[in-house]
């Protein structure tokens, strides 16, 4: 079967999608040279900048969250590939409004390599930057081995919390501390039932038997740990929430943020149905699922599946989460 995607030359995917994105949301974002996505209106001087990096093909992640109260600059790489350190360095320099920059990186090897090299340059140049690595996928490794936990949808609350603190004029160390408090208190797990298509060559990203689903996949469908027969929405949520709550050691009386993030091919209808059960499970255990968006924030070329996320909240984090923000794909 031909690749059934609305694209032109696969070599131009990223430049074309960024161009379309910036045209459609010209009121909020624009493209700077070197493929950086920046705010249409720069943040006030004296406030901490927030920069992130990551491969393309996961729209609206990550550039969809550039905007007031969220990111200052996103550095998109090619499809599924990290951007290079020179671009990252330029973004950091541009985002520095005199109060330093928080550099948020999702734990994927390419991104981390690029980020580490960037940080070497940052230090050589004497810039005021702190890097925060998000490491939350519980499928691959225990909590004691964060370096082996991948960065998933947890980036969204991390951007939101950091962005709100930065907008409030707090110092880089402060911004780092609140964002990192959330980042070290979150857990995510993915499940998929159908594959997506690699846009460069039309190939399936992975394969699954007709009657099966798989828990624990990576961001690009890298094999997970739990291949099993298809389950209902409630059964799937029961299994996954059980693993997440255990991993994060959530106790009755605690407050959580919860996200059900669609990977592309799963309808919002289903995401709502799954979120309903996430909420029920918490309620049964005396845990409050206090906040939670549901939607497609990070996709990966139309596989059917979701990322289920929880994160521990406290009063300060709730306040930062609730603060207003405005980006093309997330607003409060």
């Amino acid at each position: 079967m031909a690749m059934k995607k609305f694209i032109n030359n696969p070599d131009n995917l990223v430049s074309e999608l960024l161009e379309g994105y910036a045209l459609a949301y010209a009121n909020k974002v624009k493209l700077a040279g070197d493929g950086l996505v920046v705010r249409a209106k720069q943040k006030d001087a004296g406030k901490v900048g927030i920069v992130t990096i990551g491969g393309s093909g996961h729209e609206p992640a990550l550039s969809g969250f550039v905007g007031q109260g969220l990111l200052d600059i996103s550095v998109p790489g090619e499809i599924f590939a990290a951007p290079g350190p020179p671009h990252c360095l330029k973004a950091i320099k541009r985002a520095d409004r005199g109060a330093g920059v928080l550099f948020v990186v999702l734990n994927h090897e390419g991104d981390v390599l690029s980020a580490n090299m960037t940080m070497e340059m940052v230090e050589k140049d004497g810039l005021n930057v702190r890097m925060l690595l998000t490491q939350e996928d519980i499928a691959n490794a225990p909590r004691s081995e964060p370096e082996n936990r991948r960065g998933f949808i947890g980036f969204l609350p991390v951007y939101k919390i950091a962005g709100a603190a930065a907008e409030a004029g707090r110092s880089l160390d402060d911004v780092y501390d609140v964002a990192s408090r959330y980042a070290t208190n979150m857990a995510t797990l993915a499940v998929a039932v159908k594959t997506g298509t690699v846009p460069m060559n039309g190939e399936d990203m992975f394969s699954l038997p007709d009657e099966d689903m798989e828990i624990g996949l990576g961001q690009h469908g890298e094999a997970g740990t739990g291949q099993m027969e298809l389950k209902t929405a409630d059964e799937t949520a029961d299994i996954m929430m059980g693993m997440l709550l255990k991993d994060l050691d959530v106790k009755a009386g605690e407050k959580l943020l919860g996200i059900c993030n669609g990977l592309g091919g799963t309808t919002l209808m289903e995401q709502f149905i799954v979120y309903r059960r996430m909420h029920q499970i918490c309620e049964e255990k005396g845990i409050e699922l206090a906040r939670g968006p549901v939607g497609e924030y990070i996709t990966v070329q139309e596989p059917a599946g979701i990322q289920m996320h929880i994160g521990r909240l406290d009063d300060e984090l709730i306040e930062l989460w609730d603060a207003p923000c405005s980006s093309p794909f997330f607003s409060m």
Partner: protein
Amino acid sequence: MGETVGYDDMVSMIRTAGKHIRANVDKLTELDSATGDGDHGAAMVRSMDLADDAIKAAGGGDLKGLLHDIGWAIMGGAGGATGPLLGCIFMGMSEGTEGKESLDVNDLAELLEAGLAKVRKQTKADVGDKTMIDALVPGVQALRAAADENASIPEALVRAADAAAGGAQSTVSLIARFGRAKNLGARGIGTKDPGATSIALLFRGFSEAQNDAGDETAAE
């Protein structure tokens, strides 16, 4: 050529390495398709194109500057894991020149040791983890051993290229512990690591440029 490597020699080594990469791009794509996402061949060709561009832009004379520019360009433009890692090797080599414009065999070994050291700062992968490190480490070690024995540069580079090729070959039976291939676990056994294969091709190119055999290309 022979007793020392100067600016022009380095340019010719890099260009010959590029020739070997380009001749093997399909093989590299195939290896990365089997264990990763299939873009390693394209990333390596782009890297060598970027190196060519940097060579053209540099004009000549400043070896340290040239290697730095190549590394920085590859970092920015090659993408994937290749960009930062291979870029890093060249950046490290730049630091390893210590400003010398003409390198004897010992200087050359130091140069590549500096490249290895720099990339080691970026990744925890070690020999046996089925990555480009599996080719880079034996290649650099063989060069160091040859230098310590005061071998000629051409001979030292042949020994390095052979060792790197052997290292790449050794990855066939390994389980990847870094990079995308890690997610494949034991299913990756039987396939050579694409990054290690590329490193071996680079060493082979360096060696051939110094051995007047620049028209043939290695087949991996």
